[in-house]
């Protein structure tokens, strides 16, 4: 059986204008991410990692090219349609967690459901809490959590809407080595259940633990041997 493609970028471009100069943040990226695949995107600062993540996360619009999430061409969609795609297909996990400190673990996790106008399935929520290792901590305000538990809350929040792709930007950047390993294990377990994960990172150790590494340089995907990063 052929692997199902959940994301496909073809000749994806993103240009910015800086005065009269045109900055090519992404210049013709070709990328396919399969179901259950964990892909890391590495590259030096300014290589276009964040731009690519923002485009595939439907947070920004491409200047040219094609981007498909599942079967939907999203490159030409308007803001309202992109919101719908984000709600149904994409989960985000950030390096700085970006949780709402006064809300509890559970309330933070529920946020995407509120925005999606979906009711809360208690059973499913319990399974999710258990899966990410937060069972019993759901009533704690997130400001009292450790960095690892904050990131687990962030991951649970990203998963609550059953996304097809999880996009994470330096997900272990603020975590200790032991917790880093636990999060990576969690990602692996999630991918085994069908979730595709795309990780932007500078952490080569983390990248090497993923199934595929994409090297980005000057807005283009380059072969490993041409990359400026050594490992």
């Amino acid at each position, binding site marked *: 059986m052929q692997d199902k493609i959940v994301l496909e970028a073809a000749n994806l471009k993103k240009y910015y204008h800086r005065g009269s100069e045109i900055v090519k943040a992404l210049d013709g990226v070709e990328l396919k991410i399969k179901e259950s695949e964990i892909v890391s995107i590495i590259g030096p600062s300014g290589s276009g990692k*964040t731009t690519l993540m*923002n485009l595939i*996360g439907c*947070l*920004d619009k491409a200047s040219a090219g094609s981007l498909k999430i599942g079967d939907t061409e999203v490159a030409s969609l308007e*803001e*309202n349609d992109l*919101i719908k795609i*984000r*709600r149904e297909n994409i*989960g*985000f996990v*950030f390096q*700085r967690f*970006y949780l*709402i*400190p*006064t*809300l509890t673990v559970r*309330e933070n996790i*529920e*946020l*995407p459901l*509120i*925005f*999606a106008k979906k009711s809360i399935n208690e059973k499913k929520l319990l399974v999710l809490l258990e899966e990410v290792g937060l069972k019993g901590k759901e009533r704690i305000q997130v400001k009292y959590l450790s960095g690892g538990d904050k990131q687990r809350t962030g991951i649970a*929040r*990203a998963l609550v*809407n059953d996304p097809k792709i999880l996009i994470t930007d330096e997900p272990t950047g603020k975590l200790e080595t032991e917790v880093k390993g636990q999060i990576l294990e969690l990602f692996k377990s999630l991918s085994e259940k069908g979730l595709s994960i795309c990780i932007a990172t500078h952490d080569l150790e983390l990248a090497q633990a993923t199934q595929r590494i994409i090297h980005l340089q000057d807005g283009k995907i380059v072969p490993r041997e041409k990359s400026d990063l050594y490992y």
Partner: protein
Amino acid sequence: MKFFVLAYKNLKRRKSRSFLTIGGVAVAVAVLVCLLGFNAGYQEALTSDVDKMGYQVLVTAKGCPYEAATRVLKGEAGLKFIDEDIYKQIISDPDIDKITPLLVQLVYDPEKSDGKGGFDSYSGIERSYMELKPNVKLKSGEWFSSDDADEVILGYDKAESIQKKLQKTVGDKISIPGEDTNLVIVGIFEKTASLEDGDFFLPLKTAQRIFEIEGKLTSIGIKLKQIDRLQAFEERLYPIASIQVISMSQVKGTILNLVNSAKILIMSVAFIAIFVAIIGVINTILMSVFERTQEIGIMKAIGASKLDIFKLIWIETLIICTLGGIFGSIIAIFGGNFTELLVRKVMPYAPGGRLLLITPELLLFSFFGVIIIGIISGLYPAFRAASMRPIEVIRSGE
């Protein structure tokens, strides 16, 4: 958890700032409620005072008609005297329905107000006084036994204070401070809810004798058969050089005009308070929006639409204004008595009865007024927050 809870918890994150903003709105609402309540209350109290006077027309010695009218309304002395002969001269005027002579004197009582001292008002009256004032009725006792008896009828409040302080009531004797005469309490008037409730009433001739001003009056109260005959009546009295005729409706109108002028000034202050409160609300919400730039971006990334963000920020504004409205109304209700006390001290003439009429309608008007203001003032911060692009916001945190 709904949007409301989320908005409420956001406000709780900055407790001091939210509390101060709510306080600002509350003060503005309280000021507005008190002013509007004063507007309604003063007019009603003044109308009631003037109506209770029973006079349509007042004759006094020549001078400032408004000073004379307010002194009579307040039951104060200090008016120039007119000859009692003038009363006898005009009593037979064909336009007069009812007429009564009045002599009001103030006496200093060093024991008044728990030894602090103060003035008591003594009014010399005749039986015609009761005919002109339909709300003045005897609660207990009876009318004076003769025109110059050493007797006194007490106003309702005065009777209560004498009963409390001296344990004296109808049948007992009291003295006038600084005078040798003892007066027998022969009656107590029913409550009229006017300043007269605190007065002593003596037979006119007794008052003239005790205060050594025989043949003199301070004013004459008149009710005409037809009020539209006022001008003709005034013209007939014009040749008497020492007196003036004052129409109480004119006095009422003039007092209200004066109060209205002051009211416009005070209302301007109230509107400035409201304006400052609005700026405070906008500032608080806007600051909170700017501080949460990244958070708003993340909310958008995890599925919030522009409308969701707009709603969230708008609800925060509404919570501030609603709480401000509730606390402001409570302050106005419970602080109303203090405000009334203050107004009575400041106003040159404050009628009896409640000066501050805080009705449920007024509270609802102010409460919903502040909600509408909240809706309007929340628009800009909510629009600013909703317009943030998630990409720019997340990038700003990198």
